[in-house]
């Protein structure tokens, strides 16, 4: 199962847990499964059916351009972090 690092501002929803192992073939499925275990978490990560603006998802060390559609493997590690924007 993929390992999700829970952003510190969301740990109130996971009972203080920093990391959670979740099933899912894509980031979207992982978030859906997180929601099933920790209700309210999806609404904090998504804006409608998209990742929140100014939020990036990091899968296996790389910032994902595919975001919710990014494929996830059983040993993937997923982080959510503020998005970087350049000038």
């Amino acid at each position, binding site marked *: 199962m993929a390992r999700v690092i829970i952003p510190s501002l969301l740990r109130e929803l996971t009972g203080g847990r920093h990391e959670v192992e979740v099933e899912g073939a894509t980031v979207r499925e992982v978030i859906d499964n997180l929601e099933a275990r920790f209700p309210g978490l999806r609404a904090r990560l998504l804006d409608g059916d998209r990742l929140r603006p100014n939020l990036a998802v990091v899968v296996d060390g790389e910032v994902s351009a595919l975001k919710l559609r990014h494929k996830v493997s059983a040993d993937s590690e997923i982080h959510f972090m503020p998005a970087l924007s350049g*000038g």
Partner: protein
Amino acid sequence: MTVEKQYEVIGTRPIRPDGTDKVTGRALYGADIRLPGMLYGMVLRSPHAHARILSIDTRKAEALPGVRAVVTAADLPDLESKISELGEGTINLRYQSNNVLARDKVLYFGHAVAAVAATSIHVAEEALGLIDVQYEVLKPVLTAQEAMRPDAPILLEELRTDELGAKGTTPTNIAEHSQISRGDVEKAFAEAAVVVEREFTTATVHQGYIEPQNSTALWNVDDQLTIWCSTQGAFGVRDQVAEILEIPVSKIKVIPMEIGGGFGGKIGVYLEPIAALLSKKARRPVKLTMSRAEVLAATGPTSGSYMRIKMAANREGRITAAQAYLAYEAGAYPGSPVGSGAAVIFAPYKLDNVLIDSYDVVVNKPRAAAYRAPGGTNAAYAAEVVVDELAEKLGMDPIDFRILNGVREGDKHPGGSEYPRIGYIETLQAAKNSPHYQSKLEGPYRGRGVAAGYWGNYGGKSSASASLNPDGTISLVEGSVDIGGSRASIAMQLAETLGVAVDCIRPSVGDTDSVGYTEGTYGSRTTFATGWAAYELGNKLIQEFKARAAAYWEVDPAQVAYAKGVLTCNGRRLTLADLGSQMDDMGGPISASASVRAEKWGPAFAVHIVDVEVDPETGKVDVLRYTAAQDVGTAIHPSYVESQIHGGVAQGVGWGLNEEYVYDAQGRLLNASLLDYRMPTALDLPMIETILVEVPNPGHPYGVRGVGEVPIVPPAGALANAIYRAIGVRLNELPMSPARILAALAAKK
């Protein structure tokens, strides 16, 4: 350090294709546009930093002979709050619209309130004076710290603090709080051998591009809108205008003119929707150009900031914990680059325990725009001063301290991403071994400072197309606006791919109807991403050349070889000129296009060394010597890489020593001219020495790594550390202007 020679074109220094036009004054900029029947527009701006608009009466202005149109926010669609993606960033369209023309409130001195189009600029100016705006003046709030207080005047009544999707319940100026956390900083601080905690402030500063914003619009009778403007991205202008005016993108063509600098300040629109509305009303083309005072007062500067930094190390010199509190001014509407500041601040260091709290705070200043590594200079200034102090307390050389703690491939960024192949350690080594660092600096009031910097860079969407000419040359149309020599760097990558000389490629910049979608020239992405499109384009052309030659020779394409512009098969030979000039025999015209969404952009690191001398009588800081080492990936055109570094350092020196917005208590900008807003000139800077450390980015076909932004990240920190060694006082406020230096010297006594 240089890579072994493996390329024919890449790494050479050809003259830029647009060079002649630019040095002879023939290049066409937006202000050069002259159209039949064209009107001249001007914008009425708020004299108040914070006020409610009670009424706007435009009747007298409309009645003035020569006036053809007057517009206010009432002419704009009243948009709902909607987040729209704009390249790598996002914008709230309601705020964007309200920034173009204020609807209910003015939120900063210079906020646009109304605009006029007239037969001459003088009539337009007279008409502005006839517009009667009634205001209820409100108390302004000008810094993040003031704006965060519970009793601060509120700018946007509907604003609630967003904490990763959780909204606050009361009106506030804090638009967003975000947090990056790893490990246990409290425990690490408690166990540390050395702890340094400091607070810092930085001033609001402007990008300082030489060419002011301008826009000419023609809203034709068939409702097709054409816009000529100075922008970093034509497609971004098209998309913003479409959203703000609620018209289809298919109705809009944006023609990007040559651009006299942008540095992030020409991504968002200011004049374009106004010019379009005026043209629609007047049924004539309308041109608007900003004055320098308008540019400074009303276009996006970058954030002033307040920061608290705490870092700790063990006796072996390992950094064990880092904590930051960052509050950045967003200006009038949410969207400061504080998230990027959080990404930059501790990025060069390997950390197990880190906590970064970031606050995006609205204040009564122009809405912050991107500025070259947005948010990075503020953050790195604060962190690098603390890192310097840690090294000093441990008795370590500042570069050795950074080498010991520096990130390498496989280490993790505080946000969770893993560093691919990077050249930070090589860059530190190059700086340490440089003639500058190995030299001695002697004399009173002289000091040497070092600082490092990181920028994440970006890839994104880019397109290019090409066609073969009868003389064997290739016309290349690229979607990227050329600010810093990208016609050359992109043409060079196509030439390298095709194996032809670079002067066989004739590059030009396309408009939104003539080339595929391309994000703006920002994020240090253009040579990386549009260059990648050129690489793909070259490979497509080669396949097409082979197919045409095979058909002509009546052989299978697999039998045709291509090298250096020549096709061969069984002793037969065709050049590109043969293919282009005999197109009737060769299957007709040959063209191709390529679009990419480039990923795997590699981050960039820089290490700067600066020597300064402080005049104790005046407080003036002279920069004696400056060396910038940087991991640049493969330097496609080394001269333009060096120029990017020179530019970043020059801007960083201005940020560090002189530049700041000065407001009075009512929030009126007092220094809206380049006489009073003090940017460095050539007389203020030494020759900036550069060290190009070429560690190719494995994520790009030619190893390209963005180079344009990271050189502005370290200068302020390096200067602060140098000034400390010159006068024995650490300055915690930017700019480190003569007045502040004198105050620091007086306090020391």
